[in-house]
Every structure is written in C-alpha cells, then in structure tokens.
C-alpha cells in the first residue's frame, strides 16, 4: 500500500509515529496522523485545512485535550498525586547504580513503546479510507489530501471528531481538494 504514497504522505505516517511517542501513546491513533499533517511543510492537506479555518494551534489544542481518554498520564505526574517525586527517586537510584539506571531496566523498557508503535484501529481505518478516496478521485497516488479525506469518513476516530467539530465536512473538502489538485502538484 505504501508504495503509492507521495513523499509528503510518507512523512505524515512517520510523523504520526513521532507524535504518538512524544505524547506517550501506546499506539498511533487517527489524531496523531492529524497532528502529523502540520509537521510536514507545505502540504495540500494543511492548505485545505487552512482554507477551512483549521490551523496547527487549533489541532494542537484539540489533540492535547484528548489525553484522559486515550494517552496515559505520564508517570511523573501520576506519582506526584501520591506525593512521590519521580525525579528525586531517579536521582537517588542513579546515585547508587549510575546514570540512566532506572530507565534502563527491562521493566521500564517493557512499559515504554520503543521503535515501532503499532497503528490502532482508527489510524488503520484512516489509511484504508485514504486509499479509497484516491481511487474515488481517480488519482494514482496517495497524498496528504487523501489522508485528510480519509479522516473525514464517519467512525474513524478522534481526528474525525475534531475536524467535524470545526465544521470541516467531507463533501466540501473533497471539492476543494479536486480544485487544488487541478491547479498544483499533489502533495
């Protein structure tokens, strides 16, 4: 499937993994794909979203709000509610066992997603629907614009909900995409 992706669409997929990791998520979800769109310079999806009044700040704020439902609370924050200062524990442990001792344990490695983070159901669905959108528009590649359209199908997760809450509609977006694609190269 990925061989038909444009360079920018590939960067979105890679960026989604980074988004998920930085947010401490155990899976790449649709909202990570949405946030990743804004990390790829000059792409068609962001141009379309801009035209519809959705910018990076809007998406960041909305994705940030999702944490209690999806992404776990960071350990330091969770332990602080019990009066445990994780930084202090780490400092004490490192004094005895050397730098990075606590985070180097197998127990810690098992909890922390490393390297490959799997796509969850919603992110997979977005990618499938991106392919379907490309076919529907008779495009022989999958670009960022198709990923965006993939998010706009119903029941594809938080990305869908965020976009819809901002008044982004699938049919209108598709029309804008078609017009822009006629005018410029895919992206």
């Amino acid at each position, binding site marked *: 499937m990925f061989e038909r992706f444009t360079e920018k669409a590939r960067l979105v997929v890679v960026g989604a993994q980074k988004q998920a990791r930085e947010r401490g998520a155990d899976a790449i979800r649709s909202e990570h794909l949405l946030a990743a769109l804004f990390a790829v310079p000059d792409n068609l999806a962001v141009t379309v979203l801009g035209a519809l009044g959705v910018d990076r700040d809007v998406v960041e704020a909305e994705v940030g709000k999702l944490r*209690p439902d999806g992404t*776990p*609370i960071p*350990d330091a924050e*969770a*332990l*602080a*509610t*019990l*009066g*445990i200062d*994780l930084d202090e*524990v780490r400092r004490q*442990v490192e004094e005895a*066992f050397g730098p990075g*001792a*606590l*985070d180097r*344990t*197998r*127990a*810690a490695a098992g*909890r922390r997603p490393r390297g490959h983070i799997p796509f969850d159901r919603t992110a997979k669905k977005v990618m499938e629907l991106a392919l379907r959108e490309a076919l529907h528009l008779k495009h022989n590649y999958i670009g960022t614009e198709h990923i965006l359209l993939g998010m706009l199908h119903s029941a594809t997760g938080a990305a869908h909900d965020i976009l819809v809450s901002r008044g982004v509609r699938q049919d209108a977006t598709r029309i804008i995409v078609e017009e822009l694609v006629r005018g410029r190269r895919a992206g």
Partner: protein
Amino acid sequence: MTDATQVAAAASSRDPAVGLAAVASLRGLLESLEELQVTNARAQGWSWQQIADVLRVSRQAVHKKYRRFGF
C-alpha cells in the same frame, strides 16, 4: 509538598483516571526498582533464597521472574 498540593492530590485521586494511573505508575516504578536490586544482589553473589527472604516472597517466585535475565 505544600498543603495546597496535598489537597489537590487528595481531590484528584478520587478521579479513577488519576488514581488508577498513579497505581499503575507506582507498580511500574516498583518493578524497575526490584529488577535493579535483584540484579545487584545477584552481581554481589546473593543466592535466590537470600534474595527471596529479604523480598518476602518464595524462592521459586523470584527465580521464575528473573532467571531469564541470565544470572
């Protein structure tokens, strides 16, 4: 910790999302600390029985859990 923080902590821990996350993080921290200490004990030549006694678990339990570490 200030009084205000304590109050905030006590209040927020009634939220299951926060309270359960705290327990999970604590368990994770416990696992890391236990692993460090067991590794260190083995490196210093402690037997599984000695380690188990101090951890207050059975020798089998500690051996089963850490034998894959190869020490």
